[in-house]
């Protein structure tokens, strides 16, 4: 496969996963904003979201103070924000157009229809669009594409590059979502264990469509330790760090088999999996959640860099 084609497929996966994360982030923000404010009128959850999505600088440069409506526009529609849902869909579709011949017609259909619908959404007055409509629309579109990939795409190297994009982006995004909760939303120690704290945790689960799954897996009370275990270490939950790391490892394993060649990328992915496998929640909390998550995000980025240098840059000899 052309390296450039592999690169386009990989980025389709990344952009679509990122679009979904943006929608989920917006949902977390909207739900938390529904709570009466706590502490001394402390209301920085929207700011936290911007921090978590890495878009805070761009936003304040354009809009100044974080006002909900502006944040919604910035994270969903704004083309100046390269991570907005609209930007992600547009770029995923552009990548798809470039490698049209490497996609199945159902996949192209899903990408292209999403883009056409997005343009219609953009033409509607913002006052008519509830945030819930936008986030649901996003989840539906990303699910349609994922479904098209799973049911129609040949299980060849192209499938693995798509999967790598999805897996790496998801690992990164899940880490960031947990970080919002742990580090940004609750900066003061005396909030820990409060009603508000538990509400935030539950919101996080809901945003990841994992509320029910969590109860099936753990039962009983919702505790921060259980949730952290679920989102980080539980391989059965498809958005967990562990599940994402295993997906990345699996796709790199396929590539090793297909190409008959082992590279640094496989080593790095196995390293991440081993690091996660040996951990307990207690150890993570002891290290400090934020420090742990920053370390994982760094590792995921490193794997992304190696995948690029090895397979996507065209320098492979």
């Amino acid at each position, binding site marked *: 496969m*052309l390296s*450039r084609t592999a690169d386009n497929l990989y980025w389709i996966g990344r952009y679509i996963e990122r679009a979904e994360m943006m929608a989920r982030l917006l949902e977390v923000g909207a739900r938390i904003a529904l709570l009466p404010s706590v502490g001394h009128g402390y209301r920085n959850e929207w700011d936290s979201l911007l921090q978590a999505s890495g878009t805070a600088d761009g936003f304040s440069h354009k809009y100044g103070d974080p006002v909900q409506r502006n944040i919604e526009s910035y994270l969903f529609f704004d083309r100046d924000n390269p991570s907005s849902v609209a930007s992600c869909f547009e770029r995923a579709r552009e990548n798809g*157009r470039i490698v049209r011949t490497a996609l199945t017609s159902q996949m*192209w*259909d899903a990408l292209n229809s999403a883009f056409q619908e997005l343009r219609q959404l953009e033409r509607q007055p913002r006052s008519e669009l509830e945030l819930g409509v936008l986030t649901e629309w996003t989840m539906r579109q990303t699910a349609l594409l994922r479904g098209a990939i799973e049911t129609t795409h040949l299980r060849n190297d192209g499938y693995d590059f798509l999967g790598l994009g999805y897996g790496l982006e998801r690992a990164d995004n899940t880490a960031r979502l947990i970080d919002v909760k742990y580090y940004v939303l609750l900066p003061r120690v005396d909030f820990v264990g409060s009603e508000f704290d538990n509400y935030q945790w539950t919101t996080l689960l809901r945003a990841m469509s994992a509320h029910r799954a969590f109860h099936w897996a753990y039962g009983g009370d919702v505790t921060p330790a259980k949730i952290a275990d679920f989102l980080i270490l539980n391989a059965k939950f498809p958005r967990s760090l562990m599940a994402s790391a295993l997906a990345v490892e699996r796709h790199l394993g396929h590539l090793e088999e297909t*190409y008959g*060649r082992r590279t640094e990328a496989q080593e790095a992915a196995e390293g991440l999996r081993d690091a996660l496998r040996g951990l307990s929640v207690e150890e993570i909390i002891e290290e400090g959640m934020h420090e742990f998550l920053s370390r994982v995000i760094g590792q995921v980025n490193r794997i992304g860099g190696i995948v690029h240098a090895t397979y996507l840059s*065209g320098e492979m000899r």
Partner: protein
Amino acid sequence: MSMAPAFFNEMFDDNGIRPHYAKLGDWTQHMPAELRQMKQAEAEALFRRIGITFAVYGEGGDPDRLIPFDMFPRVFTQPEWRRLERGIKQRAKALNAFLVDVYGRGEIIRAGRIPARLIYGNEAYEKAVTGFVPPKGVYSHIVGIDLVRTGPDDFFVLEDNCRTPSGVSYMLENREIMMRMFPALFRENRIEPVDAYSTILRRTLASVAPAKCESDPTVVILTPGHYNSAYYEHSFLADLMGVELVEPADLFVEGGFVWMRTTEGPQKVDVIYRRIDDAYLDPLCFRPDSMLGVPGLMDVYRSGGVTIASAPGAGVADDKAVYTFVPDMIRFYLGEEPILQNVPTWQCAKADDLKYVLDHLGELVVKEVHGSGGYGMLVGPKSTEDQIAYFRTRIEEDPDNYIAQPTLSLSTCPSFVEEGIAPRHVDLRPYCLVGEKIELVPGGLTRVALREGSLVVNSSQGGGVKDTWVLAE
């Protein structure tokens, strides 16, 4: 030639509907306006869904706009087509013989049939390939010949496209969409299929693999990238042929061969069907100032390590000034009389012609020698005084750059328009494939000037497309 002011209508004659259009007559009779609108909307949705759009960059507007598709097919009988086919193949053969000649001994020039200045002084003449004979002696592998009709038996060649004629994806998709929407029409009429095109194209390209290629040749399509207006077509053809679609940056030269960058390491490339201009092939050879292209490509080409289709330099054969000599080429190289006629052409480079052109600007079509796409063109009878005056100045300033032709009475074909069905002017571009053999699928791209009275069929100027049928006997 017949220059009657009345336009030849391809469906109707004095006695009513011509027999080969009879079933289409019934078809439209049984199509109420609502159904037609529904089908039209369906066709548009299909085109948009498939992603066939035509981007005219730099013009603003919707970058994803569609070329209007007119559902009313254009029909040829088998005898009509057989004559066209012979004429097109004859022309494609002569053009290739000419190219081999002018990059070789130049017999046609020595024989005094074509002035040397017109060839060796031509911008499109590529000195970098003189003395080189490409595999199988083919320079132009895909020849698009634009034809217009003015009477039952009167076909004229408007121009030849020897470099990289586009539009063939529309020929194929128009058919696909018509078959999907109106299957009954295809049961009632016996229509020759066109879908062998991609198979023949692949075979043609494989047949001109370079001498150094020892295994099954690897064919690729080279595109300037996804911002190009014909990108859809490039990717469509790559898909149908099952070959890679590459950009210049995907290729590199090493050890006397061309390689593409893949996830498994370099893979050798044997035949490049390029859809980019000569100037952007190899910066070392053509444009030292350019970052585009594949450095060293031309060295590999000249040493027989890769085939480039169409061959660099093929453009000298489709120059509008060289066009006037194509009938002579046919006589000179093939010893035959041309089956298809040229449109009489005045060359402003010649003093007598220039005088005639300037005296008759109001009735002529004036074109730039190197122009394309309907730009830089004056249609005298449809132009204002100001436009004519503007062209007069331009021609006087640089007469060599212009040719003129009579305003032809282009035939019309019924087309669906706002008010119902009305005649609109059409032309035809068939795609002739030249490799070990010369082949042509029965059909082509019919372009239609959808504006009432307009004679300009270019998609950039409000033209649309139609499915083109050749009926089996």
